[in-house]
């Protein structure tokens, strides 16, 4: 699509409606608004590395949010154990750890999976490789 891009107050604006663009807007032929960047001196197409880095940041944020929502489901276990520890009730701590063994093991598995996913995202070399990473815990 044909778009018109300009910078105002240090911010990039892009539109496909010429009537909305100032007379000195720069014309580009692109697939998506996301392809342009203002680097402080010029409006240009993003490089492959810039696109890759942007998507990595987005994927890592997505992962962080997802993991937090998974762990939140068993946070009550941690709260109970922490309370027993604060009260120096050692027997209760042992009993709770035994009672919630499955939940504690699942939390450990989630954290390990999180680290693996982080590595996979950070090591991705192409956009296709990065987009093929599905953030879904099946443990």
């Amino acid at each position: 699509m044909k778009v018109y891009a300009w910078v105002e107050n240090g911010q990039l604006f892009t539109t496909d409606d010429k009537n909305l663009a100032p007379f000195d807007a720069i014309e580009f032929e692109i697939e998506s608004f996301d392809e342009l960047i203002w680097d402080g001196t010029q409006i240009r197409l993003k490089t492959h590395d810039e696109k890759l880095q942007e998507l990595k940041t987005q994927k890592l944020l997505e992962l962080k949010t997802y993991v937090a929502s998974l762990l939140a489901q068993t946070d009550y276990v941690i709260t109970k154990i922490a309370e027993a520890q604060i009260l120096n009730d050692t027997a209760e701590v042992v009993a709770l750890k035994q009672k919630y063994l499955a939940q504690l093991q699942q939390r450990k598995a989630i954290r390990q999976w999180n680290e693996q996913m982080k590595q996979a995202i950070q090591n991705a070399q192409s956009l296709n490789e990065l987009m093929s990473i599905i953030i879904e815990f099946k443990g």
Partner: protein
Amino acid sequence: MEFLRKTMSTLSDTVKNAENAYKLNGFRASLTPAPNVIPVANDQSIIHQDFLPLFTPLSIPYSQLYIQAATPSSARLYDSWYNIDTNELFYFNGSVWIKVDWTKWVQNDIWYRLGKLRISNGQLQISNDTTNWYQVFPALGRTVEVIADDTNSADNFKIAYLTVGQTLLVRGKNLARAAAIVPSLWVGNYYHTYAGEYWFGIFPSNVAISDGYGSWVGLSGSSAGAGYTSSRNFVPIQEQASEAHNWAKFSIQIMNNKMTTATTGHGTSGASIDSCIGSGTFPSAGYFLGSFCYEGTKINVDYLAITRQG
């Protein structure tokens, strides 16, 4: 003989009175509107509504707005037609087009008083920065649906001006064709079937920006979550559901050169609720609500209504 003369005189007066009942200064009286016709009440003392001036466009419940030079050929009851050649607004009463004076209620607008809405050469024009002026089109109806083709750039100019209280209805379209500038407040709700677990949003005035951000808190079953997004090229509205089943109630505020949103709607999937806020720059030359998107890709909304509140 005297009796006959008196009778003839009375008869003559009766005929004159009867003539006067039908004509005044040569104008005909009638129950139904037409040019140069004096209105007469019907047997229930009601004057036909087409005789009455519309002081507000809210008198009509729903109207499709045609913006064109030619008379619309397939108009339905209470549709509106803005003639772009003559700058006249009409509504269809079921058989004929009735002209309406739109110039009064626009002067009652806060934007008019702020010098951001004006009537120039017979046209209604709006500007956010008082430098770039765009023609917009008044419409009748509490709910207005603009007849335009989003895929035809020749229709880009078809942006309706809504007074406070009027609602824009968007059906299976991408563009929210309602004039909007600083300051304005809007509330709306929508349903659409575009599936995706990330952000539904809006390009303000159909311009991609670079500082859009959004934040959400949600509950899925008994599990709570939260998250955010930043440096987006749109203003986030709702972190939505991965299902083809999305809905929300939302508000849009355009103030301080920012477009901000506050929303509650369907999130993630199933019985999930997300409450969200969003923000992003409203372009200085922006003049209407904008175009809807999912993660920066333009999409159509199935059914959306948004009302100008102030």
